[in-house]
């Protein structure tokens, strides 16, 4: 139940006293409460759980994480150590 889905804010409005937004989840449009994201603007990515936007998603941080992970094992691969290491542990 703690799963949250990333989506893009496409419209912001007030409804029955709450700050709300329409969110595009890869083509599926749903409504979410934006009360906890007072600074969010149209075009921002957010993650939504139970109709509530929990936080903004940082594309920059995502890219940095991916870049760092892509570097893992680079040195071993270059030295040709990688596969040997694995196979010796597999048996």
């Amino acid at each position: 139940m703690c799963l949250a889905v990333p989506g893009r804010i496409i419209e912001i409005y007030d409804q029955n006293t709450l700050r709300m937004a329409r969110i595009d989840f890869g083509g599926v449009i749903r409504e979410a409460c934006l009360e906890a994201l007072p600074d969010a603007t149209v075009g921002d990515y957010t993650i939504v759980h139970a109709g509530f936007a929990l936080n903004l998603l940082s594309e920059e941080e995502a890219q940095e994480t991916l870049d760092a992970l892509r570097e893992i094992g680079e040195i071993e691969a270059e030295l040709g150590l990688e596969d040997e290491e694995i196979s010796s542990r597999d048996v």
Partner: protein
Amino acid sequence: MELSQAFRDGELVQRVVKEIRRIVTRDWVIMEICGGQTHAILHSGLDQLLPPQIELVHGPGCPVCVTSLELIDKALAIAARPDVIFCSFGDMLRVPGSNQDLFSIKAAGGQVRVVYSPLDAVKIAQQNPDKQVVFFAIGFETTAPANAASILQAKAMGLKNFSLLVSHVCVPPAMHAILGAPNNRVQGFLAAGHVCAVMGYWEYPPIAEKYRVPIVVTGFEPLDLAQGILMTIRQLEAGTHSVENAYQRIVSKEGNQAAQAILRRVFKPVDRNWRGVGTIPLSGWGLQPEFAEFDAENRFDVGHIQTHESPLCIAGEILRGLKKPIDCPAFATLCTPAKPLGAPMVSSEGACSAYFRYHRTQETT
């Protein structure tokens, strides 16, 4: 979106797993708190890729599973009333109470509705002024802001026919309970990423320090999980116990302060009885006095509740990481998703349900 796809990159997951295999030198037990992560791990097969030295045990982060039997019986009694429309997340419908479940109340003509958000329940209350609309407000810190927003909206709209049956639980007290138990096996934690999206991870350094366990904030995609496990193993192998963040695109140390302010306004810490675990002091949230009129427990007198738990179910030991679903004699025989003895077999976050759906037989050999 594209970024989410990037965190499902199988090749990159393999690379991180290779690094885990390269650095691990001895046996370690890691707990992922969140049941959503348990399902993601088993669904992706990540558990099968990890070296045999790493044992993942599954934590209590399944709100449906830890909601007390007494409260479920109360929910059933309220839902059966003819003047009530009872709204719930779908996960709860097949969770067994002492004698029946919400699904059977619905089948018998009770007005039980599955909603995606508590704000949908507020709309139902607005559309049905002659009915009492009750929302079963379960969940951890991730779900609490949505439930809090529903109360703020109902109050602002002056709705007199909306209330919450509150069963909120919080992660840090559960971590204390697990780590402080004499039979604890957990040596490192994957902290639940979306709980931390709301709460940050400022609550965790004292826990890491007190019990000398590394805690790594971890996301839900296969690459997030592999990264969280790698960072935990690096710390375990190095003998360190700090709090790290493997979910930086979503989580900051301080969390979402606006969300935390909403939570403080609506909820206050209360003792909470966790199904199968027992009462943990100040481990949950109840409504602040200002919102007492929206508390379904005040609004409906359901009389004395006599609970009856299945004597076969070992959910409590599973939720504390002491046993695996396959250790249960009733697993997949007397207890199945169609006919569950305990909540972890029905919930989309329950460990038993994850094993039933995804578990490969090789681990049992």
